């Protein structure tokens, strides 16, 4: 029983990270109306940037800020120099472009950091665990839960309570209308890509001390982010959290009893949900 509770906590921690990934992807995909196959690669770059900057500066907290900002900057460049030229091009070419970027980033990671996995310790203050009564639980995972929760809350506040957030939500609903209202739609696109990339970057940075780093981490996460969006709906914040937690917990619980199936179960759960509700968990198309 304690094992199960511990695994559910693990599931919540990873589920919140999945929710962050899905949320970022959902902003990019929803606002720009492109399939972003580079989202997983942005996640991986975030993780590797964290490790390198933490080693360079010697401070985890600075690195936790630098890594996602670096990824956000990369996102802004990608949108400004590439994606922007492809809005009229059709999904096939947009996909090929972002997929090409993912290949480039993935291979650059191997060239720069090597093909072998790297492990990275959490900062001294977050090492070890705390006694939660039913289980002894690692501090760092609790920190990730809280941090991811804060980020989701911040994104929610931005989308729901600020003017620009409202514009962004309107952009997901109806782009033509937004641009007719005299809003600079291109800037909106760039900002959305930047925020989405930031969320992917920080999800990667937070993941690094939990799972370690390997060049394949990006692609694995890309599929998971797709699952979150497919189940939660584009631009649906609560949907992203619910879907993230669902697959995170399912994965963690299955991992306790049948480790080999723990990744496949994410996609199996998605297939199951779609079998019952083809329109996703909240019915948003």
């Amino acid at each position: 029983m304690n094992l199960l509770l511990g695994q559910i906590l693990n599931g919540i921690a990873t589920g919140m990270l999945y929710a962050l990934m899905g949320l970022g992807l959902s902003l990019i995909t929803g606002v720009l109306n492109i399939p972003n196959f580079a989202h997983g690669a942005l996640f991986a770059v975030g993780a590797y940037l964290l490790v390198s900057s933490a080693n360079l500066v010697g401070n985890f907290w600075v690195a936790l800020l630098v890594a996602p900002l670096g990824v956000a900057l990369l996102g802004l460049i990608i949108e400004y120099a590439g994606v922007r030229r492809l809005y009229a091009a059709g999904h096939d070419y947009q996909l090929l472009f972002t997929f090409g970027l993912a290949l480039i980033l993935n291979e650059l990671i191997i060239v720069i950091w090597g093909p072998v996995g790297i492990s990275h310790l959490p900062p001294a203050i977050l090492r070890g665990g705390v006694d939660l009564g039913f289980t002894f639980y690692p501090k760092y995972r609790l920190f990730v839960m809280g941090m991811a929760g804060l980020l989701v809350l911040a994104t929610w506040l931005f989308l729901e309570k600020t003017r620009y957030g409202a514009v962004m939500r309107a952009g997901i609903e109806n782009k033509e209308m937004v641009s007719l209202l005299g809003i600079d739609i291109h800037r909106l696109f760039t900002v959305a890509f930047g925020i989405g990339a930031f969320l992917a970057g920080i999800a990667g940075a937070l993941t690094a001390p939990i799972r370690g780093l390997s060049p394949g981490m990006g692609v694995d996460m890309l599929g998971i982010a797709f699952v979150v969006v497919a189940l939660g709906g584009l631009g649906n914040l609560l949907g992203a959290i619910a879907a993230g937690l669902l697959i995170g917990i399912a994965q963690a619980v299955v991992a306790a009893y049948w480790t080999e199936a723990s990744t496949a179960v994410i996609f199996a759960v998605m297939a199951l949900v779609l079998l019952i509700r083809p329109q996703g968990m909240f019915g948003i198309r």
Partner: protein
Amino acid sequence: MKKETIVLLVSIIALPFVVRPAIATEIWIFAIFGLGLNLLLGYTGLLSFGQSTFFGSAAYVAGWLLKNYGINVFFALGIGVGVGALSALLVGYLCVQRSGLYFIMLTFALNQLFYFIAYQWTTVTGGEDGMPGIPRPDFLGLNFKDPLLYYAFVSLLFLLSLWLMKRIVESPLGRILQAIRENEVRAEAVGYHVPRFKLLAFVIGGAFSGLAGVLYAMLFGIVPLEAISFVFSGNVVFATLIGGSGSLYGPIIGSFVFIWLSESMSVMWARWPLLLGVAFVIVVLFFRGGVVEAWSRLGEKVRLWRSSRQKT
């Protein structure tokens, strides 16, 4: 005979003299794979990023039977086509209910499901090491271990697939699929059950992918894990787009270019997917419309340049 047919026949005969027979064979296998995708991408307007699901599943199942039960070649091909179609039915059923970007993401996510099953089910698939030792049994006294004979066999199957695909896209079914591509709402309004036709296109495309998968497994004697991964799904999309998804022959040209490109790049550098990524980006930014269009644009430029020289 038409011009295209002559060009095809000549290239089939000439190819094994230009490149190694294995590469030449791979080109036609990949072309069959591309034909299957293009029914979805070019004719129905469905961008599937999960075609390796059907390719890989067929390769694994038929490979397993070839290896452990010594089934004959034609039975293996039949199994491959069947497994390809069946897996496409399962995946397609979930995917066709959503459209646009959701559809693309679902094909990828379900591809990942099959990938992780193959990755972990090591007792059958060999996991990361792949499934080796797949034989290429003789049939009716034909020794398919002879690379050229196997090449001839694959080319024949390719021509058959092309003929069949031509029949399909020119049939009423093909027209309906094109109507869905042009205007889904209108096709629905005219009375066609759009999801059912999309699913049918999926299943047919899956059957072609399955055929290609088995031929691939027999060609190299191994099913690598990549065969069921996003890598192969991406490759076939790229090959089809680079050839031009607008025509029946696009995927064939694309398969030529792609296999040649990847074969020559992979011997150059272990990190060749980086170059491939750069190639994707360049093609998208500068050569949209594929080789066929780039060729005609080049012709246009040359003509303009000539006429401007004549004036001066």
